[in-house]
């Protein structure tokens, strides 16, 4: 019933590690993950170096097309 596939980050994870684990063999997987998870990519502004947290939801597929208005 999920609108988008996701995983929980593991402690010490970065996007490269998740990309290797969840999207093996996909070109540019790390950049894709960043683009699909702007809520986490934006954390650097206020997060002062806090990486991914174990409670973070990390989407492993892009958002669906937005329905027509």
């Amino acid at each position, binding site marked *: 019933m999920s*609108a988008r596939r996701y995983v929980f980050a593991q402690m010490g994870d970065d996007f490269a590690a998740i990309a290797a684990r969840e999207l093996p063999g996909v070109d540019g997987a790390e950049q894709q993950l960043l683009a699909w998870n702007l809520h986490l990519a934006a954390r650097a502004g206020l997060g*002062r170096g806090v990486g991914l*947290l174990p*409670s973070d939801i990390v989407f492993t597929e892009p958002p669906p097309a*937005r329905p027509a208005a």
Partner: protein
Amino acid sequence: MFDLVIRNGLIVDGSGLPGRRGDVAISDGKVVSVGGRAGEARREIDATGNVVAPGFIDPHTHYDAQLCFDPYAFPAIEHGVTTVVPGNCSLSLAPLRAEQRVAFSSMFRLIEEMPEAAFDAGVDWRWGEDFGGMLDALTGNIALNVAPLVGHSVLRMYVMGDAAQERPATPEEITAMADLLRVCLDAGAVGLSTSFVDIDETYRPVPSRWASPDELDALAAVLGERDRVLQIVHEFFDADLTVARVEQLAELSLRHGITTTLSPLFHSDANHHAVTKVMAAVEAARASGAAVWPQVQTRPIDISFTLDQRSLMLLTMPSWWKVASIRDRDEKLAAVIEQRQALVDEMNSLARRPGAGLGAGGFVVRDVVHERNRDLIGRNIDDIARERGASHGDTVVDLAVDEGLGTWFIRESIGHNNSEVVGELLANPLVHVGASDGGAHVGSFSTFGDTGFLFSEFVRGTKSLSLEAAVKKITLDPATIWGLQGRGLLAPGYAADVVVFDADRIGRGPEVASDDFPGEGIRWIRRQEGIDTVIVNGEITWTADDGYIAGARAGAIATR
């Protein structure tokens, strides 16, 4: 002879069934009879022309600190609220070690926007460290009922110390947290609250966010042992994340047989598909047998702010947030002047962001310091900026600096303001009326009067709900969802929590400034409209004629 009889009102008993005229008799804090003509009583209330309903239940509040110095949770009671759930969003005042009070207080004040002076003057920690002791300290000293959550962040702090904000818990620490949660639940906690969004004073995620899904699962298992509730504050700004949290809650609900609730769920015309998507996930969860309750607030989102203090509005402008965090006023003003261009640019950039349209041009001058600026009150920044030939950011900063940063601005109707759509959402049987944030965000908006607004806007206005359905939404529904046995219904044997109100007049009242909190500064409140009498556990606690009844302390820990 009864203690009290409320005569000839329209009894709307909380069940959702049609109202009927009759009397309600009360003795020993309980409802004795409902309907018909009751016999003699030591005291009577004539409710002719008024509705007689169960007291309203507010399931999402942060009165934790206020209840320590204000037994009435002013002005909640006069709005008909007789039971509140504090301790939401992972933060409760216990269990907490003495040496952690400073760090916790800072976190609570920041997240819930509680003034430092009020918190420090009002919270004396007289109960010590444990949750049961805190409830003992409240017992006999509160005028309304309290069904407190225990906060996940404080559980972590108690067990893990500073490591609570550094790493996941070990299996041993998870076991210790589960044991501690069990103790809190047995002492009277209605459930556990957790947060997936909040940060502390140093921008570090709160302890609950460092928990692994396994940790939350272990704690949910304890909730399952005691049939208690899990509350989360989630990434409400993103529909896909909210859907994912709904699914996470559904899994926990099914695995442990628990009720779960997430708050808040907002509607925005700028992203009207979001609520549809979330509610589809909720419906799917429901179809699987899970209990997942989104909380929907009744009021639109308005935020007031100055540039002198951190507020929700400044969260969208990190540079401003950092400047506002400077404690000394003169240093803060100097920093604004020194960093002026960067701050102006950041404020002007608001208008270019997608979504809710938070551009500074939409700020309205709410109150001013100097008489010479009084004619600006009520005007928006776009209008003033055009007149002055300046940018929005320059206009805001010029005015604020001229007034020592004391100018009050307001951004109204940021979202959740399409009454037709919100009314339809509130009427949905799968949503829970909540998310008032009662007692929090005191400088940003009033958290009082949401119940009155339910009637004025969505019963009388859009007619989205019948009178009976609206009463049920804020009485029997929350009592059932939260497991508050013996409350939320006017029926023999139930607690005599009663509100008498005029269905044609009940509302939320205008938002006004109040300086009633300890220390300097103001908070925003609303006074009741259309309420006649509020009774808590059989004790008349507030009336339109006499106001708050001195010494009324019939409030109870609703879970004991």
